[in-house]
């Protein structure tokens, strides 16, 4: 949906004047920040699970492993999104004016 909205913003008609304002509320940076926050939460959950296993609490071994896997996947995803964003930025910077 966002991609389509982005295309309409390029149209020369004056109809899309309201959409850029609405989009400004949730910028790409906000989405990225939310994602980093989510990844961080999963990392902290993994840390907590590992600590609980070490301390000999009732947590099972597989709970810690699964928490670690979740943290791993979310981190990889975040890195991919970051790579894409940097790629796009560099592509634009290379553009001839």
């Amino acid at each position, binding site marked *: 949906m966002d991609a389509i909205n982005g295309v309409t913003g390029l149209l020369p008609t004056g109809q899309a004047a309201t959409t850029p304002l609405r989009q400004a509320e949730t910028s790409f940076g906000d989405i990225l920040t939310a994602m980093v926050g989510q990844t961080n939460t999963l990392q902290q959950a993994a840390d907590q699970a590992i600590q609980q296993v070490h301390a000999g609490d009732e947590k099972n071994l597989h709970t810690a492993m*699964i928490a670690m896997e979740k943290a791993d996947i979310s981190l990889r995803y975040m890195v991919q999104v970051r790579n894409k964003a940097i790629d796009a930025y560099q592509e634009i910077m290379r553009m001839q004016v």
Partner: protein
Amino acid sequence: MDIFTTFDIAASGLNAQRTRLNTISANLANAETTSTPEGGPYKKKSVVFQTEALPFKQHLQASLGNQGQTQGVKVARIVEDTSAPQRIYDPAHPDAKEDGYVEMPNISVFKEMVDMMSATRSYEANTTTIKSAKRMAMKALDIGR
């Protein structure tokens, strides 16, 4: 994130099989226990599995139709075997009755071993599900490369 649902379901399976293995190990350890604090020989314990109740969020999503009824498993309760204990003639045994018979637990070690193999295999199946889900997620991330 939705890709982690598989992880949570498989984790419930791992938990259930772990509990099952615990009861099996208790049964094996007490295969020849003739006296318990409650009196009488040890009674064989076995687990009863039940589908896990969905949290409210998942219930909502399921009813909205964007997700099937995915449910985990949990151990509903641990039941004790109610069958009569085995009676073995051994008058020299300290727990022998007046007629010389000793009441032994109704546990077949072979049966317990087979149950243990089954629990181990189920545990492995659940870990394989997790590995599979992880592989799928990694493949999805490879799209961007």
